[in-house]
């Protein structure tokens, strides 16, 4: 999971978030386990306040640290792309519609598969991979609200926030 934070791209690691959770698997939250909670936190699907034990005394520092770590996802400038490989069929839709891919490898505009290492998306071993996230137009310098890959991903494997 990558997020844009200030002038750099940051990778959120579920294990780092997990280590700050109570790790009791108390089942009071919707994901039920602390590891599943950490994963959802990484994806921005849930917030630290959704963990009831974390709001109890003794976890103030952990809560604060978690809030800081996920803060970029809540800010107006934050952006990220989730590509769920289990849903991806390798249809190449994202490769062909991505304006950056078309500029980097013009034959993709005619429906051809991406072969170079210069595109944002490339289908490898039957599944689309984001190989150059920093080239995405949502990131500086463009900072455009481009969502074409998400819009034309028929299986909803791509999700942008």
């Amino acid at each position: 999971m990558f997020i844009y934070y200030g002038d750099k791209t940051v990778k959120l690691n579920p294990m780092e978030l997990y280590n700050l959770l109570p790790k009791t698997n108390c089942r009071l939250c919707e994901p039920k386990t602390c590891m599943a909670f950490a994963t959802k936190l990484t994806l921005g699907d849930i917030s630290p306040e959704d963990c009831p034990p974390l709001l109890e005394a003794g976890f103030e520092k952990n809560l604060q640290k978690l809030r800081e770590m996920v803060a970029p996802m809540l800010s107006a400038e934050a952006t990220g792309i989730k590509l769920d490989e289990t849903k991806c069929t390798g249809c190449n839709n994202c490769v062909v519609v991505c304006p950056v891919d078309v500029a980097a490898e013009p034959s993709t505009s005619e429906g051809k598969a991406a072969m170079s290492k210069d595109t944002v998306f490339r289908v490898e071993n039957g599944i689309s991979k984001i190989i150059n996230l920093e080239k995405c137009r949502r990131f500086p310098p463009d900072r455009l609200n481009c969502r074409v890959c998400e819009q034309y991903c028929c299986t909803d494997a791509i999700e942008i926030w």
Partner: protein
Amino acid sequence: MEDIVCNGCSLLCDDVSAEVSGKTVNSLGLCKLGHAHLEAAVKHKIGSKDKDLEKAAEILASSERLLLYGWAHATNEAIEEGLKLASTLKGHFASSVQMGSMKAMSHSIHSKGLDIDLDYVRNNGEFIIYWGADPSESLHRHPSRFAVLPRGEKIPEGIESRTIGVVDVRPTETMKMANHRLILPAGSDAKLLDLINSEIEGKSSIKEKVLGIPGSELVGFVRGFQKSDCTVIFYGSGIINSGNQEAILSGIENLVEVLRSTGKEAYALPMFVQPNTMGVINASTKGKHQATSFERLTSGEFDTILVVSDDALANLPGPVAKALAKTQIVYVGPPGGLTDKRAVVSIHTMDTIIAGTGTMTRVDMKDIQFKKWAATKDNDTIVDVLQKLKEHVSKKKP
């Protein structure tokens, strides 16, 4: 990475590459189906064939009523060899293309010249309709390579220069890309087609909800046909499952003709899944096939069946497969599947994606040449086996 041609489905993608390193297979551009197909093909182990060839030739030569069946996964060259072998053995050459739903799919669209090159669709197709077809499930790259997303000569903005319609009996993933999403009650396709034809010809006027579709939505769909200079309808197995396939296909033919009569370009293309269905249809339309039916297969008419590159026992309807399973089967093709297991003799060959030789015919009748690559080994193709079988049986049955 080397350029290869994929035979995982009827799109026969020729813009993809792959490499094999030990047990690892890497690919670029192949969809999930294509990559899984390549991985399976790489693992096939092909042993020595001499004894099996001798035994198979013995069985085929002694057969009095031989059926040569399959072919939709074989190359055009293998189909030619199969026809020669059928002639030598006075056997009956057949495929699933002549039977049941496939017979309807391959019906008169091609013989009437209603189809078109997929590259032409990419360059000119303005109104694209998937009717009873969901490429997101079976032909993953169809929208991105040819019909929906790519830019073309008269389609400078790709999907933004096209209008997309999807007609189905259920919500499908392909509908996510569509401007018009029509969900019909099962079996009502022909009625909708008649209605569209009448509306375009000015013989009726849609005002109210029809077949559960709001009138305004339907009027918008019909306007799509009227506005488009080039309409292409891709019809899939959904129309076959609706029960009145002949009426629906005739309705599609009529729609294409009605649009053409107004001075517009219009075409219809099937969405077959098996890679060389069109190769078999070509052989069929050139009069190289004899008529077959499920009844003939179940009646016990044939004492021996040579199945070539098709898992017939898995793909045919249950009663037909059960009847075939009681018959003596000789199998030629890549290893694996029920038919291979049930066969008295199996002669294994490399999958065409590995063999890298020969041609298959894409859904738009364009021949695609396979490419040799590092994984290719010589003399393990279906053509080789059929030629050797012909030599063996010629000695036994001069």
